[in-house]
């Protein structure tokens, strides 16, 4: 979270973000100010369409869930839009729908975000409702208990998806009880125990303007907006105290195999280990390396080997999920049960290959061309621009990030890629979760430490 502290009055900095095309530059103008209550406001005026998108990020993500209360950030976020002190949930929903607006609050792993889209002519009214939801939510017992029951049922429904079960189990095993040790939705057992008092306490502690970033994109006047938000969000005082950064998870040597038996036709595999935080300077080297390895879709080695050559899987991809804290590296794939061993073998071979052999200059150039050339695609819609602005502020990337990005990527060399692969890939120390018909899959990996997580649920069902 990057904040410049409290400032009094209006600090206006207009900055042009440049997104590079091959021949021309295109400017995205951003105005950055800080409200009296400490919230950072970023505005990008876009007058082509009569609509406005607002997104407000709070330091209220799932990493803030207290011990034994996994899912609290998520339940709090969902409960906020169930009415205000003046309006019942039903009255609020009717007003929002009548304008054709949308309003919702979601908790992610790092942050919770309140999001609105409205027609320009309903912008002020929609913003007013969003402000009431954030500053004076009703948080009535009955509404919270209803949302809680919905979340439990949704978690049950998610258990139908073997891919979800694999991902959930992998996360729990890798991060153990650290802040990232559960998915934002929590698990059925922990959500069962949450109370309305928990939700209200979490709201008061974490929905604080001093730690918030507001992005407004669309058909608005930036100048008036500052005063309007100053007034509407005045009640959200204070900031959230910093959270100590946990260590990067270390997987001990060996293949740590966890099997979950399900009556399914495909083995759903999650394989990986600890990764990096967004602030790690190797982020860009890893972006290039992972594009070549398994992040680059049909251009990636994993797709070429596992899907295109062998026809073993419909989808296979690798991801470094870099957050505020060190995240994971994860390869996810599905293949028919009987091919599970073969697919895992191919994945491990590719991890070793990119460590042992330098990538070709041509592969390096292709990766750079995509990463640099496709940058404008990240800024082609209001919602995309809003989330870009929030990332820039929260991760301290700088308002000139779009200008810097091509240089950061372009600086990566063949040996940087190999060095990053050697340092951050661990093909001999990994967690492997397989949700499969275990009899058909008969998983076996060299040097494995096996545990059977039971037939149904795996960790924390």
């Amino acid at each position, binding site marked *: 979270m990057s904040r410049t502290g409290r400032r009094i009055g209006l600090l206006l900095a207009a900055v042009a973000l440049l997104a590079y095309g091959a021949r021309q530059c295109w400017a995205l103008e951003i105005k950055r100010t800080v409200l009296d209550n400490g919230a950072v406001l970023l505005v990008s005026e876009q007058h082509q*369409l009569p609509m406005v998108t607002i997104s407000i990020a709070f330091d209220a993500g799932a990493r803030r869930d207290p011990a034994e209360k996994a899912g609290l950030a998520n339940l709090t976020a969902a409960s906020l839009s169930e009415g205000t002190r003046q309006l019942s949930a039903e009255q609020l929903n009717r007003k929002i729908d009548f304008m054709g607006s949308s309003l919702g609050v979601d908790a992610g792993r790092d942050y919770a975000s309140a999001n609105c889209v409205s027609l320009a002519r309903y912008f002020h009214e929609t913003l007013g409702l969003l402000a009431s939801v954030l500053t004076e939510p009703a948080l009535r017992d009955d509404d919270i208990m209803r949302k809680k029951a919905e979340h439990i049922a949704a978690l049950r429904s998610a258990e139908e998806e073997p891919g979800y079960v694999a991902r959930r189990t992998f996360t729990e095993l890798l991060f153990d009880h650290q802040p990232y040790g559960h998915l934002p939705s929590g698990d059925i057992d922990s959500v069962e125990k949450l109370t309305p008092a928990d939700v209200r306490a979490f709201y008061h502690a974490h929905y604080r303007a001093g730690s918030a970033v507001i992005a407004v994109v669309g058909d608005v006047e930036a100048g008036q907006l500052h005063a309007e938000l100053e007034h509407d969000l005045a009640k959200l005082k204070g900031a959230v105290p910093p959270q100590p950064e946990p260590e990067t998870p270390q997987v001990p040597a060996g293949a740590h195999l966890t099997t979950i038996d399900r009556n399914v036709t495909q083995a759903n595999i999650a394989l990986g280990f600890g990764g990096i935080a967004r602030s790690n300077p190797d982020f860009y080297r890893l972006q290039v390396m992972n594009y070549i390895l398994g992040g680059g879709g049909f*251009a990636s080695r994993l797709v070429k080997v596992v899907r295109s050559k062998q026809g073993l899987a419909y989808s296979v991809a690798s991801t470094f999920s870099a957050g505020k804290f060190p995240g994971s590296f994860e390869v996810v794939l599905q293949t028919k049960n009987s091919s599970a061993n073969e697919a895992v073998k191919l994945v491990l071979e590719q991890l070793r290959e990119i460590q042992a052999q330098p990538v070709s200059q041509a592969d390096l150039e292709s990766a750079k061309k995509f990463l640099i050339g496709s940058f404008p695609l990240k800024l082609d819609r209001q919602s995309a621009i809003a989330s870009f602005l929030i990332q820039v502020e929260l991760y301290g990337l700088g308002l000139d990030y779009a200008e810097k990005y091509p240089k950061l990527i372009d600086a990566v060399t063949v040996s940087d890629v190999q060095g990053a692969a050697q340092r951050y890939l661990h093909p001999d120390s990994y967690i492997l979760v397989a949700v499969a018909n275990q009899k058909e899959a008969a998983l076996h990996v060299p040097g494995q430490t096996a545990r059977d997580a039971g037939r149904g649920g795996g960790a924390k069902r």
Partner: protein
Amino acid sequence: MKLRFTNRAYALAAAACLALWMVALPALCARAALSDAVRTATLPNGLRVLVLENHKAPVAAFVVFYKVGSRNEKFGATGLSHLVEHLMFRGTKTVRPEEFSNIIQENGGMDNAFTTENYTAYFEVINKNHLDVPIRLEADRMANFAPQGFDSEKAVVIEERRLRTEDNPQDALAELAQAQAFVEHPYHWPVIGWMNDLERLTLDDALRYHEVYYSPQNAVVVAVGDFNADEVMRQIGESFSPIKNGPKPPPVSEVEPAQKGERRVELRRPAELPAVALGFHAPNYRAADSFALDVTAEILSDGKSSRLYKKLVVDRRMVVNVDAEYDRLSFDPNLLWITAQLRPHVKPENTLGVLEGEIAALRDRAPSAEELQKAKNLVQASFVYGQDSIFREAMLLGQYEMLGDYRMLDQYLPGIDRVSAADVSRVVAEYMTQPQRTLAVLIPAGMLPHPAGGASGAVVH
């Protein structure tokens, strides 16, 4: 339950899905009329070309639509349209297998394709400076289809079916319900095809299918983005004009006979939650009633103040989600679906009773002026929001053009605006009747037992 189309890369399925269903409820224009700004041409070989300048971001979208989908397939050879879509990435006389996506990505673009019951679409969203690249590559694979690696690509499609349908209770129910509702018309079978059919399809089937359906006379090409329309029109003409037509595609002559009496079907399989699907035969865009049916679906389930959400999610707390969807742009008359995933232990027959009560209420008492206006406002707003994405704009233009004329989209909002409260009750009475419905129920059975606690909190060692 929205998966009546299927596409090549799972990662983009969600995005395409959203885009499709957003444009399925189009309408209002922010500008005077969106279609006024469109440049069109018909090449001598019959190819229809639509080009629209949109300068909001330095990107461009290119979409090639072929009027072929599962509706054009024959009994015993289902899934062929979608398999051909996959094979389109497997090389031509000049482009090597899987090179297509590599080239697009190197030029700062993303590409994919998807198949529906009615059509197949190939699309690129790309840095505006490189739009000539997808234009040349798409023309090449229309003319010079020569796929390699047929067997492994078929294996990928079979894995896709396992992932989407075999191991997914909701989609398995949707497939069964659709097969029950259509007896004679090809909407009977799923887009991805039956497993046994897929296993029997041959390379020869694919080559002949391409020859008939992948002709200029059977395609629509749409470009939207930050470019000069004359220049792009010239590039398209240059690349596509030399392509010759194959044999004329045979018309789809099957007509679904009127349904006489309710059809009920039950699926018992491993699942966490019960589900209900209720499908009613309904006319498509050719009928004036299609506007009122669109408004009816809005009133039933769009937004948290909609009737079904309010009754089933909030008041009775019976379901996790409920949705009414109607695709008025279906090439042939299709279904208006109501689908719901139930909370654990809720009896499907009780949910059905409440659904029937809501349908009867809308039939017997016209909606209030305010409720009707709210539904219209929601439609209008989503139309404006849809224009925030150049890809969605291209989709919308192409969908209408395939039905005969892209300018029909200008009639959409006026059509919605003319719907009266009495119209809504009348179409409910006419189409949403018991003898014209198919009821499908998912009953969880044969789940493997879940051990209490499972591997909770276990430490990796």
